[in-house]
């Protein structure tokens, strides 16, 4: 085992060439994941609500988006945006933006399913009671249904964040300088320790994702006490 290429380049793994050059490495991975999950949450919330709408056209539009995206591999989606964006916009879009769009569109569909299931899991009486006491559909959603169901969805959101963090590694295929890409570069430069390098970044990914996973498990236990149930 030769760990000196890893030790010598450890700061490159953490934040790339940051103060002198572009941000990269683990910092870029986390940044990419954080931006994408924030945007994907809103996209997912929108489509999750559309999926529950009474209007057939809106409901089916959301259904088509969700089913198409969930049936396509993420790598394919990234390449679609990579090739499509320059043709539609007319100039080449930076890889980082392309990746964020692809990740948001991809994760948004999964979050939409979480939102839909979360709303459906709430007892029907909640909506009926809220409507019955004089709230409009929109008010009932905003003040009664969503606060309860969103809280129940938090563990699923955290799990989605974990898989998004893992998925950011695919950005390396179109050249975004995140952790995986940095590892590839160091591996190509040093040539003698690919196993140690990839093992190191596997452990780095693992540490982040494992902390999040155990956090979501703890949340799940805590939140299960407050759930509204049909009795």
């Amino acid at each position, binding site marked *: 085992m030769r760990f000196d290429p890893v030790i010598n380049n450890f700061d490159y793994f953490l934040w790339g060439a940051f103060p002198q050059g572009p941000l990269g490495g683990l910092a870029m991975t986390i940044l990419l994941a954080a931006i994408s999950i924030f945007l994907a949450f809103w996209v997912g919330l929108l489509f999750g609500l559309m999926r529950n709408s009474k209007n057939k056209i809106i409901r089916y539009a959301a259904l088509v988006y969700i089913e198409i995206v969930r*049936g*396509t*591999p993420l790598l394919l989606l990234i390449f679609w945006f990579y090739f499509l964006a320059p043709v539609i916009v007319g100039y080449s879009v930076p890889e980082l933006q392309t990746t964020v769009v692809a990740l948001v569109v991809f994760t948004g569909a999964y979050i939409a399913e979480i939102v839909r299931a979360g709303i459906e899991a709430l007892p029907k009486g909640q909506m009926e009671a809220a409507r019955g006491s004089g709230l409009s559909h929109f008010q009932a959603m905003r003040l009664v249904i969503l606060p309860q169901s969103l809280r129940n969805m938090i563990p699923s959101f955290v799990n989605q964040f974990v898989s998004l963090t893992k998925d950011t*590694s695919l950005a390396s295929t179109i050249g975004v300088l995140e952790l*995986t890409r940095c590892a*590839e570069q160091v591996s190509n430069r040093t040539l003698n320790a690919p*196993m140690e390098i990839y*093992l190191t970044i596997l452990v780095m*990914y693992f540490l982040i994702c494992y902390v999040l*996973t155990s956090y979501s498990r703890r949340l799940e236990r805590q939140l299960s006490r407050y759930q509204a149930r049909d009795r």
Partner: protein
Amino acid sequence: MNYQFDWQLVLSGEYADWLVSGFVTTLKISAVSLLLAMLLGTAVAVMRMTKFKPLEWFGLAFTEFFRNTPLLVQIYFWYYGSNQVLPDFVNKWLYAHDFEFAAGVIALTVYTSAFIAEEIRSGIYSIPKNQLEASRAGGLSFVQAYRFVILPQAFRIIIPPLISQSLNLIKNSSLVMVIGVMDIFYMARQIESYSFHGFEAFTVATLIYLSISLVVSLCINLYNKHFLRQISY
């Protein structure tokens, strides 16, 4: 958008042959990995349910590690890293016999088996404990109780998530193109770089993945509607 679509180009001749051979490779690598992942996943699930602590911990560490790391990096690890520890003659043999495919299969198998192990374990745990107690009290042996009471019920629950794991495996198999396995996505990229007609090739590849997923998820929904209602709690 000034792009000339030329569907004839990808749907006939040499490029169509490429896509077909890519599709066959995708199916082949998915099938082999799925079979191995089922076996490995069951083994890991059993490990985690034994009373023997070291085995239980090994199973736990295995599932947690491989579930919480990106598949892409795992693929790189097996492909670029594993030949460092293998003896020379094994490496020579592997390089002569499609090492890319083997590394892809190993990565997909290990990654998917971690998820499958969790599904199997949670499926068996979701059967109430008193089912086992009741069947033991009713005179069945431990093995009989598992065979006739627990597993038939557990399997009904596990089948839909197992199928959706298989679906994930098929979609994830697109990642092996990064190490040069010539699956359908690799072929689509090949066509794009040869002919600059990426759109058509990508559309075909997407439609294939999409139709597999849609058909399978339709089947899962039908299954859920018809069979999952019969489970006793």
